[in-house]
């Protein structure tokens, strides 16, 4: 019964998210509204973690399976895929390298600078 209640809570938030998607004239998918609502709910303790936890973990675990039907849909877009196969592969690979390097170097810079500051601060004290 606990699992059903948790699932009901998650589905309720998904429904509120659908309402928001309908009301707010922005091209944002319901799932994004729901994700943000859930996060705010948890942070403000309006939604206690144990009221959603078990069912949420289950859903996150099966996520890859949920992607199967839309991915099989590639059968219906073979022509569109062929038209952009080369740019798709090049862009996917090159941008992944760039993003990894920039994210890593920027956050490493921030970490090392603050480490340096704290050790200098430590010496002064």
């Amino acid at each position, binding site marked *: 019964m606990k699992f059903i209640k948790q*699932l009901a809570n998650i589905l309720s938030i*998904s429904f509120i998210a659908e309402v928001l998607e309908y009301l707010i004239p922005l*091209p944002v*998918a*319901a*799932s*994004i509204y*729901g*994700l943000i609502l*859930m*996060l705010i709910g*948890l942070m403000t303790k309006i939604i206690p973690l144990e009221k*959603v936890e078990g*069912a*949420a973990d289950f*859903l*996150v675990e099966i996520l*890859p*399976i*949920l*992607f*199967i*039907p*839309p*991915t*099989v*849909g*590639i*059968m219906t*877009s073979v022509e*569109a*895929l062929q038209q*952009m196969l*080369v*740019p*798709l*592969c*090049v*862009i*996917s*690979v*090159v*941008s*992944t*390298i*760039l*993003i*990894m*390097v*920039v*994210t*890593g*170097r*920027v*956050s*490493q810079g*921030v*970490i*090392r600078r*603050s480490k340096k500051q704290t050790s200098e601060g430590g010496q002064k004290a």
Partner: protein
Amino acid sequence: MKEMLTQSLFFGVVISLLCYQIGLWVKKKVKIAIANPLLIAVLIIVSFLLIFDIDYEIYSSGAKYISFFLTPATVSLAIPLYRKLELLKKYPKAIFGGIAAGVLTTMVSIFLMSLAFGLTHEQYVTLLPKSITTAIGMGVSEKMGGIVTITVVSISITGIFGNIAAETICRLFKIEEPIAKGLAIGTSAHAMGTAKAMEIGEIEGAMSSLSIVVAGIMTVLSVYVFAGFI
């Protein structure tokens, strides 16, 4: 037989679950990133449907019940993020600074390369969400008028490449701090990259899985600005 399948409620669901299990089994046997259970499942299903000349619609009429859970499951991604909130509070500058820089790089690099390749608006917005988790990326692509299935393909290519290349790239570009490594891998290669980050270390794994959702939300916000450029 085909007529029976058209009316079947369970054909699409059963073949999906069965092929995913085969995918999991293959992944266990050959421990390489390309042996991704999702991709293996999709390859088997597509081959099966083509060989027996079954339309996607017939498969999808049952399989759509699996995808029913996609929104609730995406909503549930808030739970793993909430559990890692302490980390976020501990290193806010490194996390937000690094991921924001990464998301900006995603947008600018895809914009410039799409321009160079002369892609159409439809093809461009199809690729914009390619570095974030499929759950969020599909919604972005759909809302912006992209080709959702091709977005899923580019997300998979990104994830597999990120998983394979992560250690080499971090070594070549001297990304040595565990926190920075995790953020870099999660922001560039979402969940499939995170699997590698978890192998590298605990901090790397935690940071990488945190990046999935943070980068996803930041990407949603920036796509609306960048989508208008082509």
